[in-house]
C-alpha cells in the first residue's frame, strides 16, 4: 500500500484518524522506506523545535511584561459580560509548558527576583504537576499562621480565609518584604497558588490585613470574589479549619 507524503506527514504530526494510522503503521512495518520518510518528517520537527526552543528560555523583556500588566484597556460596556468566562477556571486547562512559561516569565522574572533581592530566600514557590505550589515558609505560614498572629516581624501576612466553591480552604497572603500578594487554596498535595500579584506599596506599610480586602491588589480581590462560597471565615472558624489541617 502506498501513501501520499501528506498522509505520512499527518502521521508524523499525529493528525490521522485511527484506521488510517493503523494502516500506516502496518505499511511502515513492511516497508522501511515508509518508515524512513516518516522519520524524516519527525526529524525536521525536532530540528525546528530545538532551534527555536531556546527562545522560550530567554528572559522576557520587562517592557513586554509591564505593557501586558499596565497598558490601558479601552472601556467597553460589553467587555465584562463577554470575557468573564475566560479566567482563572481556564488555569486548570493550561498545560505544563505554559505553566513553565508562566514560571519563567512571571515568577522568575518578577517574583523570584524580588524574593531574592529582599533575601527572603528561594524555594517559596515550586511547580508540581502543573500547579504552582507554596513551599518553605510561605507554605508553613499558610498552614499554621492565623490572621490574628500577623505581626510586623512575620515574613508572611495572612489575609482572609474562606471556603471556595469547590469546597477547599483558601487564604490570601502577602509578603511585605518582597511586595507580593497572592491567593492559595489547600489541595491534597499542599497549597496551590491561584494568583500572585505585586502588592501595592501602601498595603505593605499599612500592616494588618484582617479587614484589608479593600486594599488587596485587584487581581487578588477579584480571584477571591470568583472563588468564595459564602462569607470569609471568622477568627473562630479559621482556627477550627487550621485544627482540621485545612481538610474540607
Amino acid at each position, binding site marked *: 500500500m502506498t501513501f501520499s*507524503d*501528506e498522509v505520512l*506527514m*499527518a502521521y508524523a*504530526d499525529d*493528525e490521522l484518524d485511527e484506521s488510517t494510522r493503523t494502516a500506516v503503521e502496518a505499511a511502515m512495518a513492511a516497508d522501511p522506506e515508509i518508515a524512513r520518510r516518516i522519520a*524524516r*518528517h519527525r526529524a*525536521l*520537527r525536532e*530540528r*525546528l*523545535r530545538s*532551534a*527555536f*526552543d*531556546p*527562545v*522560550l*528560555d*530567554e528572559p*522576557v*523583556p520587562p*517592557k*513586554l*511584561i509591564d*505593557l*501586558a*500588566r499596565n*497598558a490601558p*484597556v*479601552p472601556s*467597553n460596556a*460589553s*467587555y*465584562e459580560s*463577554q*470575557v*468573564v*468566562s*475566560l*479566567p*482563572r477556571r*481556564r488555569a486548570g486547562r*493550561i498545560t505544563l509548558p*505554559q505553566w513553565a*512559561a*508562566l514560571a*519563567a*516569565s*512571571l515568577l522568575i522574572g518578577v517574583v523570584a527576583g524580588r524574593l531574592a533581592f529582599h533575601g527572603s530566600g528561594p524555594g517559596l514557590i515550586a511547580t508540581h504537576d502543573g500547579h504552582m505550589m507554596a513551599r518553605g515558609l510561605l507554605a508553613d505560614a499558610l498552614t499554621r499562621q492565623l490572621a490574628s498572629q500577623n505581626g510586623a516581624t512575620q515574613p508572611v501576612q495572612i489575609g482572609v480565609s474562606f471556603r471556595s466553591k469547590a469546597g477547599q480552604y483558601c487564604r490570601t497572603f502577602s509578603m511585605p518584604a518582597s511586595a507580593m500578594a497572592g491567593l492559595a487554596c489547600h489541595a491534597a498535595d499542599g497549597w496551590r497558588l491561584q*494568583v500572585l*500579584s505585586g502588592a501595592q506599596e501602601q498595603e505593605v506599610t499599612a500592616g494588618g490585613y484582617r479587614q484589608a480586602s479593600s486594599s488587596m491588589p*485587584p*487581581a487578588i*480581590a*477579584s*480571584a477571591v*470574589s*470568583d472563588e468564595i462560597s459564602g462569607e470569609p471565615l471568622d477568627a473562630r472558624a479559621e482556627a477550627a479549619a487550621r485544627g482540621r489541617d485545612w481538610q474540607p
Partner: protein
Amino acid sequence: MGPAIEDLRDEIIAMLPRLRRFARSLAREPHDADDLVQITVERALGRAAQFHGDSHFAGWLFGILRNAWIDECRSRRRREPLHAPEELADGVGDPAAGSQSELLCVQDALFRLPEEQRLAVSLVLIEGFSYKEAAEIMNVPIGTLTSRLARGREALQNMLSQTSEAQP
C-alpha cells in the same frame, strides 16, 4: 472592579515566551520580533472585548500576532521595495554565535520559504498547534493548511539536508 481584565493580563503574560518564539520565526531580528509581540499585546488588550471565553485563547493571540506581522510585511515592502537578502550574511561570522548558529541556520532556511508556508510550518511544527487550530489562526481551510505545510516541509528538508551535507 474588573475581574476579567486582570485574568486576561495574566494569561497574556504567561504566553509571552511562546509569542516571542513564534515572532522569531516570522521576523529575523530579535528586536523586530519583540516589536511584533508588543503590537500583539497592545492589540489584544485593545480588543479584549472581542475575546470570547469559549474560543481558543492561544489561537486568538497567535492570530493577532500573525495579522500584526502581515501588516508589518506590507508596510515594510512599501518602505523598502528592493529589500535585499544580504542581511542574511549578518551574524554568520559572529564568534559569539554558539547555540545561536543552529537557530540562524534553521531560520535562514525557514526565511527562504514563501510567507504562507513559513507560517504553516511555524504554527504546526514549532508551536505545536493542531492542523485545525493552525488553519483557524491562518484563516484558511484545513486542506490549504496541509498543502502549505507539506510544501514548506519538503522545501525545508531539501535545504537543511543540503546545508548539513555541504558543511564540513
